[in-house]
């Protein structure tokens, strides 16, 4: 993987993140570093600890990554302005969490988003099934799934296309990567179903 030039413009960062591919992560890291001075501003402005503010900044950056890749960020404002707005909200979340013990109101996409396209009658059935599921146990099985399967599923969940996964993990093609990924999915399902 080749290194990136030191000073990248916002336009370079945006196109690098949108381009997907194995280098996407490098561009994301650069975006994180470019504006991480906001953490210091946040500490001063919101009177949060350095760690709390850094955590809020990371959360904000992750949201921005997501909004860039799914085109929710329309560039109607500058990238820094956009990030700053989300970061401020995350800081407010952190303050709220400390003072009222309430969790964030600015979570990522909710579980229900995937279900919106289902017909109403089917959706309620599927939602009930999900509620009956055990997320903690699923998480434990994921941790024990094996490094390669786990890494592949994490990359997929992180928004990487099968083509990128094939390149990064040395599969011959996107189709082969997809077959392997679905096999990992199936393996996880078997373990989850068979082991209480």
């Amino acid at each position, binding site marked *: 993987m080749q290194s990136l030039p030191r000073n990248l413009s916002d336009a370079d960062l945006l196109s690098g993140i949108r381009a997907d591919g194995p280098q996407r992560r490098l561009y994301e890291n650069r975006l994180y570093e470019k504006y991480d001075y906001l953490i210091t501003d946040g500490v001063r402005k919101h009177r949060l600890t350095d760690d709390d503010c850094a955590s809020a900044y990371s959360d904000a950056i992750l949201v921005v990554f997501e909004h860039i890749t799914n085109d929710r960020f329309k560039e109607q404002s500058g990238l820094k302005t956009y990030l700053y707005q989300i970061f401020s909200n995350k800081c407010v979340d952190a303050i709220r969490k400390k003072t009222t013990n309430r969790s964030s109101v600015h979570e990522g996409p909710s579980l229900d988003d995937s279900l919106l396209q289902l017909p109403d009658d089917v959706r309620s059935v599927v939602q009930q099934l999900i509620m009956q*599921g055990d997320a903690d146990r699923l998480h434990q099985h994921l941790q024990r799934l094996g490094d390669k399967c786990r890494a592949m599923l994490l990359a997929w969940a992180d928004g990487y296309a099968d083509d990128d996964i094939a390149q990064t993990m040395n599969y011959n093609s996107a189709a082969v990567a997809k077959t392997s990924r679905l096999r990992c999915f*199936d393996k996880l399902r078997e373990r989850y179903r068979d082991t209480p």
Partner: protein
Amino acid sequence: MNNLETIENYLTGQLAPADRTRFEATLRTDPALAESLAFYVQTKHVVRAEARKERKAELDALRQTPRQQPAPMRWVAAASVLLLLGLGWLIFRLDNEVPTTAQLTDTYLADTYGQLGTTMSGGTTGTLEQGIDLYNRQQYAEAEAIFTRELNRQTNRSRRSSGSTLKGGLGLASGSDRLLKFTGLAAFQQQKYDVAIKRFQQLGQRTDLFSNPGLFLEALARLKRNEPMDKEQAKKLLGTVINRNLEGKKAAEQLIETL
């Protein structure tokens, strides 16, 4: 596995409309398919949360990593400081130090001989005026050609009329001192220093002139040509100009201090 692939294709909008309708119909009647879909969605949510947690840890680690100023930037910074110091020194020198020999030479030449006077005593010819005009318009080559032709013409006429050398033993007529000077200056302006020196030497050897800039101009031409021994000879010439109180004495005094 095909089951999961179809679910994924459905959720990502990759099923054809007919397949989509068929899939939704099957969902209503097949509890196993509904369960698989629920598992897919829940797993994606769990895996995404895990991916996010790991990515966040990576980003936090970025912050912990001390970021070194890249080497090229350090060099740029160092170069900038040196450049500023150099510029400061240059400005200081320009403001406070005496001009260099080359600067003085150029200044004197531009001030004194940048433009030639068109009003001439001693019978100015139309040809000479034309040469002066060309010189003043910085068409030095054309001006030199006219001055040289006129100089040769006057010299030949003078030789024919007297049959011997006149005016300092060079065979030059009265008034040709200006032509020698102009021809030399036109050559000087074209950086043809050898020609200029020859003309100024001829001028300097004239003994019949009330004011003779020949030696001084030769010194300037030698300083500009800057061949071996030129500087030494220019220094001697400037010394002579000063000692004999010749034309250019004041400038010679300034110049000699820089040598």
